């Protein structure tokens, strides 16, 4: 009996030394998410731009600084496309005489989890917070913007809708949809990312907006306004 138990005991001890037990959330997330999403910071300095070409999905190693936990748990149970034409370089396009068109039917379906698995994965992802200081340093506080002015600002003055949708019938197809951004993302993340996307992702395809802090906060307020209207 003792001899039979020995391998198990050794395995348990090794797991304890490694800092987790078999079936721990980290293992589960690595298994479920790790083949497409980066769960650790890539070596950007060595890989250069090629890092971006190796991606299959957005990095998640700072998910706890980025997403709202409630949204994550819900998304994992009922996923929906965030990038209407796919996440670069996995763009799904139809080559037509009118130009490149999004090919929604070619988008890969995101993994769908049970309620309990989604909760476990969301809790683990929310623990990944390497950029907590970028969040705490951000000065955004919720404000109000008139919907009409916010729309004008987002579309005409800032040109965000070249790539992003602020409603299902307005805006481009290459960037992530933004009509759900307020419910998906932490307000300080939106603000800090808008101020300097490169701090979060050196290989982002989001240009660094040439905006002062007040202008950034106005845009965040607009995303709040449309998010709460949806």
């Amino acid at each position: 009996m003792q001899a039979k138990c020995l391998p198990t005991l050794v395995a348990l001890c090794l797991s304890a030394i490694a800092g987790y037990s078999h079936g721990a959330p980290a293992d589960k997330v690595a298994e479920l998410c790790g083949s497409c999403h980066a769960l650790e910071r890539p070596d950007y300095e060595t890989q250069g731009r090629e890092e971006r070409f190796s991606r299959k999905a957005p990095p998640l190693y700072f998910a706890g600084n980025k997403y709202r936990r409630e949204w994550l748990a819900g998304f994992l149970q009922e996923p929906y496309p965030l990038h209407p034409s796919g996440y670069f370089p996995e763009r799904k396009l139809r080559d037509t005489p009118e130009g490149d068109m999004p090919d929604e039917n070619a988008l890969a379906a995101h993994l769908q989890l049970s309620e309990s698995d989604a909760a476990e994965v969301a809790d683990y992802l929310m623990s990944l917070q390497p950029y907590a200081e970028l969040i705490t340093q951000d000065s955004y506080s919720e404000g109000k913007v008139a919907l009409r002015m916010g729309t004008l600002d987002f579309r005409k003055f800032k040109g965000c809708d070249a790539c992003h949708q602020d409603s299902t019938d307005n805006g481009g197809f290459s960037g992530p949809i933004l009509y759900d951004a307020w419910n998906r993302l932490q307000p300080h993340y939106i603000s800090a990312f808008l101020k300097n996307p490169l701090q979060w992702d050196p290989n982002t395809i989001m240009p660094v907006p040439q905006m002062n802090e007040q202008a950034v906060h106005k845009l965040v307020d607009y995303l709040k306004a449309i998010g709460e209207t949806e």
Partner: protein
Amino acid sequence: MKAITVAAISALLSPLSHGADDASGERLYTMYCTQCHGMHGNGLGVNSSRMSVQPRSHIEREEMMARSDEELFKVIQQGGKSIDKSNLMPAWGDNLSEEEISALVAHLRQLCCKESGNE
């Protein structure tokens, strides 16, 4: 933990100098430009059908030859407004190094004016 966090943030704050030289103009064009200017460079990118100002076609020789390399560099680096064009063309000067922008300009010249194809 705090030290690791600070180190990670510091690393990110540094400009991505690395493999600028590794990424060819064509590769950079695919990554940063095709969403609006199209996978064929014809101005019909996936965003174009919903844009209020149509992106420039980069395969039209005459139009492209009317722009100097310096102008092309400037519009990529500082955005459309810097040459009195649309603000829908963003400024990429913070994202891309000068070497990368030069590589993009060289690729634009290939697209518009290479000997085979578009003459």
